[in-house]
């Protein structure tokens, strides 16, 4: 990661990769909501950062002025190849209608709640196996040794690629999302992912299996097969969107439980609170920020946005807006009114949200069943990644 000059004025010169923002964005958002609810910065191009729930959700629904053709929070600084393999990026996330509409419909049935229920037993077994395999009875890195190990293996199963490659996939996804500021590393991660998927595609052409890749290949739209670049783009998206995000949500939730004994005790003893509690943890520690490209000059809430500017869709800050969530900075496990937008808002609502929720719930259930009592080993050792996806990367805990 490249070092960034320290931020002095968050209203006019924010930087989502600033170390202060990575470790505690919450107080920065609180301040901005009071002084300048849509901040601006010229670092990495002209970017806007809304922090109020209403502004974020209105922009998410205005797909005419705010396009999804550029959703990376850190714009790519390297050289784009003249004929990219992924001619359409990663649809549906990087697409507007009509491309968005039909590519999204291809993915949705793979993540319906019925389908997701069929992945639950393997997820539970995986979590148990990880816990049984902890090298020590005293403690573990809850991010690296647990949270990080779960979603990638579930996604590998959905895609029909070997779970043995989990660490390799994780490395590529981190290169693309977490180390996006390093253009070369980012390009290498994306390139490796595509180079891996292309021969997998060929293999399934002759030997189709019961997996998402095979089904995408076999699907027809308007009587014609889907272009390979769309198949690879959508498959790469599922891997990129399904791994870091969910692992970060699991990690943040474990961080919360490590630091809040009464919430931990409540989850252990009160099974009825779980459905609300999982949503509350998603709200409070929403991992994902996306970007939008402004399509034409527009004044939004007094901000003179120009065509080509980018807006950072600050779903995490929207979820901490006290106008919508009383005591927004406090986790209230049984919060009954919780229209959180951790999975976005509008037509790009996370296609994997049912899966993500199931994984988060099962990961926490299994952890708490085995380890009801634990705390941080040393607060100073905890590190957070951020930018597009926020979550702990190093989270040493001790079992009590």
């Amino acid at each position, binding site marked *: 990661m490249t070092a960034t000059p320290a931020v002095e004025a968050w209203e006019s010169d924010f930087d989502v990769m600033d170390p202060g923002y990575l470790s505690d964005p919450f107080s920065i958002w609180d301040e901005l909501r009071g002084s300048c609810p849509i901040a601006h910065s010229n670092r990495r191009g002209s970017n806007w950062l809304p922090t109020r729930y209403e502004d974020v*959700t209105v922009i998410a629904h205005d797909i005419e002025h705010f396009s999804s053709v550029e959703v990376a929070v850190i714009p790519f600084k390297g050289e784009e190849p003249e004929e990219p393999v992924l001619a359409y990026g990663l649809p549906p996330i990087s697409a507007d209608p009509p491309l968005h509409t039909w590519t999204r*419909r291809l993915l*949705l*049935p793979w993540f*319906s*709640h*019925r*389908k997701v229920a069929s992945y639950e037993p393997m997820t539970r077994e995986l979590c148990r196996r990880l816990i049984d395999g902890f090298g020590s009875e005293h403690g573990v890195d809850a991010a690296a040794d647990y949270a990080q190990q779960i979603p990638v293996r579930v996604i590998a199963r959905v895609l029909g690629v070997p779970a043995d490659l989990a660490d390799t996939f994780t490395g590529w996804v981190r290169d693309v999302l977490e180390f996006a500021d390093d253009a070369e590393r980012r390009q290498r991660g994306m390139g490796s992912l595509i180079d891996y998927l292309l021969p997998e595609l060929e293999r399934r052409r002759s030997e189709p299996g019961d997996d998402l890749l095979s089904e995408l290949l076999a699907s027809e739209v308007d009587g014609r097969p889907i272009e390979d670049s769309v198949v690879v783009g959508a498959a790469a998206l599922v891997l990129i969107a399904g791994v870091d995000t969910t692992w970060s949500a699991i990690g943040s939730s474990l961080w919360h439980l490590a630091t809040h004994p009464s919430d931990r005790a409540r989850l252990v003893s009160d099974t009825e609170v779980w*459905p609300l509690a999982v*949503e509350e943890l998603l709200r409070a520690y929403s991992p994902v920020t996306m970007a939008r490209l402004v399509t034409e000059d527009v004044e939004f809430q007094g901000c003179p946005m120009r065509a080509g500017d980018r807006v950072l869709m600050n779903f995490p800050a929207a979820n901490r807006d006290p106008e919508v969530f009383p005591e927004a900075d406090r986790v209230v496990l049984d919060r*009954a*009114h*919780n*229209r*959180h*937008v951790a*999975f976005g*808002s*509008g*037509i790009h*609502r996370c296609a994997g*949200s*049912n899966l993500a*929720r199931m994984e988060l719930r099962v990961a926490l259930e299994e952890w708490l069943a085995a380890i009801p009592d634990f705390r941080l080993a040393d607060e100073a050792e905890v590190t957070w990644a951020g930018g597009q996806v926020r979550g702990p990367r190093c989270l040493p805990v001790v079992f009590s």
Partner: protein
Amino acid sequence: MRIRVDPEKCQGHARCYGLAPELFDIDDYGLSSVAGDGTVPPELEERARLAIANCPEYAIGETG
């Protein structure tokens, strides 16, 4: 109490189903609709209100 889901607004967050699976059906594409004709039995009214208050798209409404 009777409820309905506005299919134009629903984006498939599935919060309704998560909170009150007896009251909603969700298709393979995430679109929610009310079970039956949307009539809520008295013992489920509280959960229907919970679903209404948690839908991020304001897609669920009370019709009577």
